[in-house]
């Protein structure tokens, strides 16, 4: 069961503007998805460890060797605003996390 409050909270955290109608609709749909996943979970017994990845791969590493980098011009090419070397963003009332 997903409540409209939960959906509104998540939408706010994800910076997605939703109308009350959309929130109602999503709460219903998300509830169905969560129930469906819960059904799948019923199949897994206590002997099946939880996993975050479907493929049994581990330890995929990269050697510590420098490679190609972008130039500042390339980095800024897609930026809506910049000062020639840095990205320009509106001042946000927040802080480093």
């Amino acid at each position, binding site marked *: 069961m997903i409540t409209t409050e939960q959906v509104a*909270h*998540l939408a*706010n*955290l*994800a*910076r997605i503007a939703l109308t009350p109608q959309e929130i109602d609709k999503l709460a219903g749909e998300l509830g169905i998805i969560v129930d469906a996943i819960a059904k799948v979970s019923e199949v897994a017994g206590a002997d099946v460890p939880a996993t*975050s*990845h479907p*493929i049994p*791969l*581990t*330890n*995929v*590493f*990269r*050697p*510590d*060797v*420098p*490679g*190609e*980098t*972008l*130039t*500042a011009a390339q*980095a*800024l090419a*897609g930026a809506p605003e910049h*000062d020639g*070397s*840095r*990205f*320009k*963003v*509106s*001042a*946000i*009332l*927040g*802080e*480093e*996390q």
Partner: protein
Amino acid sequence: MAKAELMDYDLAIEMYEPVLGFEVHVELNTRTKMFSDAPNFFGGEPNTNITPVDLGLPGSLPVVNEQAIKYSISLGLALGCSIAPSSRFARKNYFYPDLAKNYQISQFDEPIAFDGNVEVELDDGRVFQVSIERAHMEEDAGKLTHVGGSTGRIQGAEYSLVDYNRAGIPLVEIVTNMIHGAERDAPELAKAYVSTIRDIVRSLGISDARMERGNLRCDANISLSPRGSGILGTRTETKNVNSLRSVERTIRYEIQRQAAILAKGGTIIQETRHWHEDTGVTSAGRPKSDADDYRYFPEPDLLPVEPSDALIAELRAALPESPLLMRRRLKADWGFGDTDFQSVVNAGLLVELVDTVAAGASPQAARKWWMGEISRTANDRGLEAASLVTPAQVAALVSMVDSGELTDSLARQVLEGVIAGEGTPAEVVAARGLAVVSDDGALIAAIDAALASQPDVLAKIRDGKVQAAGAVIGSVMKAMKGQADAARVRELVLVRASEQ
């Protein structure tokens, strides 16, 4: 900002038990970033040490730096932690432009190292056990510069400029469990703890650990528990305290500030605070809120890290001696007394001394320079001594004094030049023309001139009143602008006097 009311420190400790906790971020000095092959170098031209991965561009995929994993495991082992047989990365979701992806790759429920213990020695030699909850890997964020507004701080800024060169630099965050029992020594323990972590990462060689450069950053948590209540207080978290001295001052200040509020029946707000080095106060930052709902979930682009027992054993075998044991050994090796040795430790200059001795200087000479002239200059400028000169430069200076190429007073001038960035000691000597005049011919000429102008002194010396030579030595040293070895001048004065 309004000045907070503070309670007398002794009274605060009488009424409340301080409970501490620390989060120390260590930037690893790998060659490349945590998840991209961009050089691990913050500085230089903005936005040049970055790849599409660091900008989170569509289609880019992070890949874990193997060296960063090894460094993290070594650090975990040095902190007495267990290494997780399997750990994974997670996305910490938040909207702030210091990371372009709108999330930071971190570790959440499966950190690489957990359940450790660090022995922390206080100034008087008492050893305190600090229990480590976890050490996890994550990536550093970009650097924001707030433009507009008068203060340069975010309040009132019109816009911000972002440099992502630092984004993606590997970090290990070391989190302690709550620390009880430090009592009135809480500020000192705080400083000693961060200093110990710094010593450990330096001894491992995995970080430059320069606090003033942000290689090592401390977030200090503190709460006060009313005596006898058994109830934990609400904590505040003071962010990015950037020197050992500031760590100590922050804790002391927060104890006094929180105590004053509690004693009046007020409540402590759980919030992030900022330390202001110049005014010696903390100020309120962001209250804990919805924004802390980071919605961590496993990073789908990265696979679990499962270090083999063989790798862990290999890294364990390669661990250097613990700083605490090393201190005990060095003290004996160097033949320093308790006070002399402890003063070096307290000044945080042990590693500098070790490196200076390794570069050829005697322990006594290394101590003299680091604890003397260099520390004085550092204090005057409000900097850390280690940021002024390198151990190799100090060893070179000592060697020039030992060989008679420089006198002590000349060496001080050379040091000043090295600190001013004029080059190596040899370069400063050459550029400033500071070498001792070792040419006996030039000295003899000056001595003869001095003797000729002070015939009464010459007569006294001839009569065997050797002390009278002092006046001649003085005028010769003056003529040589101090660039002569006084002992050699004295020898030559006596020779010349007897020959005339």
